[in-house]
């Protein structure tokens, strides 16, 4: 896992890429907690989101969950293969299971996210 990857408390990950883009996905903890994913709705390319706004939705057998933007920016690429291959999220949540790529409005917003150790502490504190 790349050292620069950061996490939101709402269980999305964000990884800076070359060219200034940020790739976004959901953590393995989130995938495991949801279990039995059935549907996913992704945003359109070109949509602008603010940090903390819903980027899309994912449905498991018991629940619909929002996927939140970890940073503000414009959606420049969407993993369109994902909704028809949701098992990818479980198999490779930090690689092939990426969800969108954003062009961030302010790259400094990344510093407000959690590093791996801080996120691990959040996961450890979750009721289970």
């Amino acid at each position, binding site marked *: 896992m790349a050292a620069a990857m950061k996490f939101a408390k*709402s269980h999305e990950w964000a990884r800076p890429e070359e060219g200034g883009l940020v790739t976004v996905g959901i953590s393995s903890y989130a995938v495991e*907690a*949801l*279990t*039995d994913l*059935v*549907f996913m*709705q992704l945003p359109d390319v070109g949509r602008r989101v603010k940090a*903390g706004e819903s980027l899309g*939705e994912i*449905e*498991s*057998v*018991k*629940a*619909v*969950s*929002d996927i*939140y933007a970890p940073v503000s920016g414009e959606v420049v690429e969407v993993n369109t293969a994902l909704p028809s291959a949701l098992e990818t999220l479980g198999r490779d949540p930090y690689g092939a299971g990426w969800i969108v790529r954003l062009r961030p409005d302010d790259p400094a917003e990344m510093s407000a996210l959690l590093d791996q150790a801080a996120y691990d502490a959040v996961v450890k504190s*979750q*009721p*289970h």
Partner: protein
Amino acid sequence: MNLHVWWDRPADGPWNMAADELLAAESTVRDACCVRVYGWRGTSVSLGGFQSVAAARAERSIAGVPLVRRPSGGGAIVHGSDLTYAAAVPKSHPWGGSPRLLYDALHGAMRLALADHGVVAALWTPDVAGAAARHDDPFFCFDRRSSGDLVLPADADHGGDAKIMGSAQRRLAAAVMQHGSLLLERNRGVPGEASHPGLRELTRNRLSPADARPLAERWLRVVADSLAMKLVAEEGPFAPEALVRERARRFADCRWTGRR
């Protein structure tokens, strides 16, 4: 820790969905489990958050019945002869982690409450290893099965086990809101495949809709006791009527209903 309960008068779909969304916000303000128990004004259908409105329009058995899209998942429910609830907890609550925590807590408590009323129900488990939800799940919630659904055993009149309670969640940034429905009797406002047997039919009149209130009260007592929560029956509304009305506009908007 408290369990706050509101017994609300029957309302239409958009109002109920708006109130439930506000209930989720209320649970974070109170940092407590909040439950709203309510009915519907006439027969209505609530559509799961990811279900297609075209599929709903194609279901002839519910033609002309008012339709609202829930923010929560799952299959379509025909309301009007059921006991509907919304339960919300902050994500920091002991039931705010994985979806199964709240689901099993509330369904397990209803199983016990039904046992106190002389009805033996069970939490459904798949008999095929690895059985999971599919994209082509049946349209109606009560035709679907997933782990933890509350079922009554098979009998000669109704074939296989019959689902009597199903629930589904909306997981928000700070709270989890769970919708659920306990089927009290067949809904006579819809024909055939949309009308599923409820407690009245499945218990051969041992329980009827008149028993809904004492059954729900017992259920909530069991829910509260399971986490040593103080049960608080709330008198006043948790949100101003004007706010619910304003929020209800979104759920009445065809752009919301037709979003999928």
